[in-house]
């Protein structure tokens, strides 16, 4: 078959959080290269169901790289070998005929496995709940154009705000740190006037929550930014540190 490849999938299977997991190897034949990687998993699941077996559980939803639901550690990389793309934006053309592709869940103390490749990322929500917002009640906002914001700052805030909360940074980090995730949100608000009044409280609360939930600390390795599907920059962490030091100095 033209433009189709065959490959093996070595996939982590784990029935429940309590049970022990293991790798299983499956074979997929003649998969067209314009198939997405998750569609290849769909094909595998259809084959498993046909055999009466349980399909591989994995998180996915929008399949266009924006919801942050998909995860997967593929061949040693969060979201696979492509850069600046999520697993759902990964296509079979990225792989070689005959290759064995290893697929694991995110590995982090803060992300317990739920089933197979699916993990619990609730800790990320909890960090946001600790302070990732502007305390503003609906209604009573002034006119949207009342405060001019420089385009440079707005664009930079937008780059930070592009974080999709997938947790790849945590999975990539040897310390299991969520520093890039926290830094993206802190930076977005640090760059905008709306975020200023609560800036100090925010950075302390979010970092404290991150530590409390069992994430590791940052040692500036940079694996997070290298693997981030949204290219969130390491400079966000510098800004976070600056914000934190300045907040602590005022204590």
């Amino acid at each position: 078959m033209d433009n189709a490849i065959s490959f093996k999938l070595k996939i982590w299977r784990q029935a429940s959080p309590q049970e022990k997991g293991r790798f299983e190897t499956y074979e997929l034949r003649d998969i067209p290269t314009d198939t997405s990687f998750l569609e290849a998993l769909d094909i595998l699941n259809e084959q498993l169901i046909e055999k009466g077996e349980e399909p591989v559980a994995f998180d996915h939803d929008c399949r266009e790289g924006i919801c942050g639901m998909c995860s997967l550690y593929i061949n040693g990389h969060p979201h696979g070998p492509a850069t600046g793309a999520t697993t759902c934006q990964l296509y079979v053309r990225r792989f070689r005929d005959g290759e064995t592709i290893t697929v694991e869940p995110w590995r982090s103390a803060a992300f317990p496995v739920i089933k197979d490749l699916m993990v619990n990322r609730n800790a990320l929500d909890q960090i946001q709940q600790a302070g990732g917002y502007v305390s503003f009640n609906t209604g009573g906002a002034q006119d949207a154009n009342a405060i001019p914001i420089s385009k440079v700052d707005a664009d930079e805030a937008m780059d930070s705000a592009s974080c999709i909360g997938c947790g790849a940074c945590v999975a990539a980090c040897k310390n299991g740190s969520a520093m890039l995730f926290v830094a993206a949100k802190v930076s977005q608000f640090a760059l905008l006037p709306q975020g200023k009044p609560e800036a100090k409280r925010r950075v302390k609360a979010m970092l404290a929550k991150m530590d409390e939930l069992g994430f590791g600390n940052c040692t500036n390795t940079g694996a997070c930014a290298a693997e981030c599907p949204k290219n969130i920059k390491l400079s966000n962490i510098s800004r976070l540190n600056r914000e934190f030091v300045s907040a602590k100095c005022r204590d």
Partner: protein
Amino acid sequence: MEEKIKTTAVIDSKIPEGPVAEKWTNYKAHQKLVNPANKRRLDIIVVGTGLAGASAAATLGEMGFNVLNFCIQDSPRRAHSIAAQGGINAAKNYQNDGDSVYRLFYDTVKGGDYRAREANVYRLAEVSNNISDQCVAQGVPFAREYGGLLANRSVGGAQVSRTFYAKGQTGQQLLLGAYSSLNRQIKSGKVKSFNRYEMQDVVMIDGRARGSIAKNLVTCKLERFAAHAVVIATGGYGNTYFLSTNAMGCNVSAAMACYRKGAYFANPAYVQIHPTCIPRHGDNQSKLTLMSESLRNDGRIWVPKDIEDAKKLQAGQIKGSDIPEEKRDYYLERRYPAFGNLVPRDVASRAAKERCDKGFGVNNTGQAVFLDFSEAINRLGIDVIRQRYGNLFDMYEEITDVNPGEKASTIAGVDYYNPMMIYPAIHYTMGGIWVDYELQTSVKGLFAIGECNFSDHGANRLGASALMQGLADGYFVLPYTIQNYLSDQITVPRFSTDRPEFEEAEERCQKEMDQLMAIGGKRSVDSIHKELGNVMWDYVGMGRTKQSLETALEKIKDIRKEFETNLFVPGSQDGMNIELDKAFRLRDFITMGELIAYDALNREESCGGHFREEHQTEEGEAKRDDENFFYVACWQYNGDDTKAPSLIKEPLHYEAIKVQTRNYKN
């Protein structure tokens, strides 16, 4: 169709008195409110965490109500609103181009082909300005000009620039704004958040919605939740077609649960087919990817003028960039000079289908047209274009391996860039649960907001209006109107979930799950869903006829039988079972598919996204029949999914706008 569709009494949409521009002000001035001490005693279930659900849950929490908020994903931030690309409309007139609340209202009613409820649309246009203020206050990083003020662009169906945007990720930024407000309420304890929970049924007590049965998707166990009112914000039903731009998890089950409890389903035939999606590539495809409508600001849509060129393209002998300017047919600019490439979505989609049906399609399946940036790149330079659409170009390249920003040829001194290939795909559903002006369904205490209600877009939605409606409903409309309902509920104590109504509802849901597990057939959920999707696309898609719709109803009946007798769900109910979750959703997609077909069959006219081939002008434009179909079609459940529903009509009354034929030509 064993049963004759019968028509019964008219229904009350509770539209306030007075001129259209004063209705909402009058309503707010005279509605009943709930005082702060009583708000603390009232519980509200909000199902869904998209723009409508998250903004409603956050706002109700801020007001002091106790909110139980559910989502099927692992976090409220994943809801599919996040994927909206283009922008959000507001009638700010920041660009001094003649915009006003009235013009946004007018454009929306006209864009909806005069099938929306006038009073609701006016209110939507009115609160649009509050939304952009609200979002900026939350720290949403909208695009700005160098002077520091907000930037705007245009989308289809408008002659002004009123769309606010954050790169091609506006839905993401607005949703994260709502999510951040929601997080603040979760932290304060006013909102309880239930992730990976799916609503299975609404629990009724004495004729009012008083709770829900939800499945914990991790444990596969049913749980009971009581409240004083239930709000569903669960999105549209586009995935009935299997392939759509919706996320994989988007489903219609919560809406169908409401429908089975007596909530009317309005205008299901109004399905939006978006013109700019990446064409289908094969049978394994799981979803279709949208390329933002904003691309039509600078992109020009074309097919070859010469059928021979089209044949060569289909055979792969030449590429789009080999065809010079004079041999390209920019058919939207040709047919609709006044709006050109920015005609509304329904018009653009049908025009693409018309060209492809005539043999001018440009890919191997003949089901694609070009979207070309050569002219814009030559005029503005690649840097400006990349700044505007860079992320969309990258997304397109990742999927198709073609870079639309790459120069591909120079013919007679003109540079040509690789065009994108696009084709229409199911994107949004204008129909939905019927609601009155207060966003309450025909079931007391049950409200529907966002895409899952029918209210504001008529037969076709304009670009950048979905985000506007979701946030309008959630931030500014429901938090007011729900108080009018709750004001006399303050003495109603909390219901125990041990009541027989909860017991019965849970038992029924459990039985349904057991039945699905017990079928023991041979077919997977997806294989049957794909079959349903093909029937829907082929017979209830862009062009519908009486015959195609009757065929669809026959075929869906067979699909239901196949589902009920030959489905196979592996695994057990001892823990997470994703196939069982999908089977539950497919059961409801089948009923939804029938509902769409019934409505499309009944509506013997063409309007907006609903195109009946029997009803078109000589030029191929949609031909409405205002004399016979100037109404909202409300479908009432008849006690069994296999029985045809009953039709109830809500007549439309226009006071401010003269109903006329839609014209985008001059």
